[in-house]
């Protein structure tokens, strides 16, 4: 019973630690002009490697069992290297080293826990929603406090990530040693997985270009809080009212995003609705790859990375972004509907 909450809180701790490295330690140590490149490197390592790591752990259940703790420890080592190293060696060397190590720990943590959560979800969306929601808070708080009060935020992140790693260590002997097939139903066909991947890439692109509401100070934490609530409610509502409700909620985000402007509320509500689809993405990927929960989880992150990367190839105006994000939400919703077909709650995954 305690396991889902340990996973959720440790997810927050891992992302909080990583974003403290990036915003409190790495950015201030960089000469002008290198940040974008290093941030892209972080994204490539932390998100691009989840698919191959997931494929690797799928046939190694013992490794998957210790993976969450291992990921936490490696992330903690990255943070400690960046924090302590910078005290002795000025410049970006140790922050870059720490960022690289932490990105690898982040990838291992995410894909191992994601694999466990998907395998044990029994086809329900809410466990994936509960796990995923904390990441947005870790990113938001890590950025906000790491930028605002780094002298407090970084040591706090170090303590929190060490405590999270200890908590994860206590879970290693749980029923994690055996990867059980997640379904005995017919897996989704390849074309459905291809449509789903296209939807996830579009979602990643839309998430990157989501309009930023005019907020200042602590109110800038509202968007990550909305993302958190969106992921959580997408899982809960999808279980209660059927999977298509999550698709519908993402489609409804389109007009809100398009109409958002000087008033922040349409954009904030649109942000919440836009992210409700994430648990469904992950469970549908598992439906297509039922014997590979780690790879299925990593594949969703690879698509997210591809969408985010595509967004870096152009710089449309704020007005154009709204229309692009709205269109991306609608097309991604249609593709997801096509990919899931007539699948309803717990129909393809038992």
């Amino acid at each position, binding site marked *: 019973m305690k396991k889902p909450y340990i996973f959720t809180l440790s997810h927050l701790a891992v992302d909080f630690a990583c974003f403290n490295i990036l915003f409190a330690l790495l950015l201030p140590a960089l000469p002008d*002009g290198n940040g974008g490149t290093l941030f892209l490197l972080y994204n*490539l390592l932390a998100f*691009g490697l989840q698919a191959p790591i997931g494929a690797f752990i799928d046939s190694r259940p013992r490794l998957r069992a210790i993976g969450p703790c291992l990921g936490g420890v490696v992330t903690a080592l990255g943070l400690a290297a960046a924090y302590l190293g910078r005290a002795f060696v000025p410049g970006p060397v140790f922050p870059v080293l720490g960022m690289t190590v932490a990105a690898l720990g982040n990838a291992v943590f995410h894909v191992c826990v994601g694999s466990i959560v998907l395998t044990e979800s029994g086809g329900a969306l809410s466990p994936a929603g509960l796990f995923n929601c904390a990441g947005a808070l870790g*990113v938001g708080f890590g950025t906000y406090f790491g930028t605002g009060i780094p002298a407090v935020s970084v040591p706090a992140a170090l303590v929190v990530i060490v405590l999270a790693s200890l908590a994860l260590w206590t879970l290693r002997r749980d029923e994690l040693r055996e990867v059980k097939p997640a379904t005995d139903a017919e897996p989704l066909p390849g074309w459905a997985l291809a449509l789903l991947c296209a939807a996830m890439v579009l979602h990643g692109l839309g998430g990157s270009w989501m309009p930023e509401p005019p907020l200042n100070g602590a109110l800038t934490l509202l968007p990550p809080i909305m993302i958190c609530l969106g992921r959580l409610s997408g899982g809960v509502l999808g279980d209660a009212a059927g999977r298509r409700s999550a698709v519908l909620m993402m489609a409804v985000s389109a007009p809100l995003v398009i109409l958002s402007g000087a008033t922040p509320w349409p954009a904030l509500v649109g942000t919440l609705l836009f992210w409700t689809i994430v648990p469904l993405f992950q469970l549908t990927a598992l439906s297509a790859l039922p014997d590979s929960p780690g*790879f299925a989880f990593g594949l969703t992150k690879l698509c*997210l990375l591809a969408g*985010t990367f595509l967004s870096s*190839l152009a710089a449309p105006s704020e007005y154009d972004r709204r229309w692009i994000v709205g269109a991306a939400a609608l097309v991604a919703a249609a593709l997801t509907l096509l990919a899931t077909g007539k699948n309803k709650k717990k129909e393809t995954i038992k």
Partner: protein
Amino acid sequence: MNLIPLDVAPEPVYESPTMLIIAAAAIIVLAAAAIVIILKRGGKR
């Protein structure tokens, strides 16, 4: 929001074509590897 919005970085990445090409190549390699894994694991079923 899982990922770092690239526009928060001091220099937008699209102004660094070399890194863009390297990143694109890395993503293409990862995607190709993913397709191979999907085909292999799909074939086992």
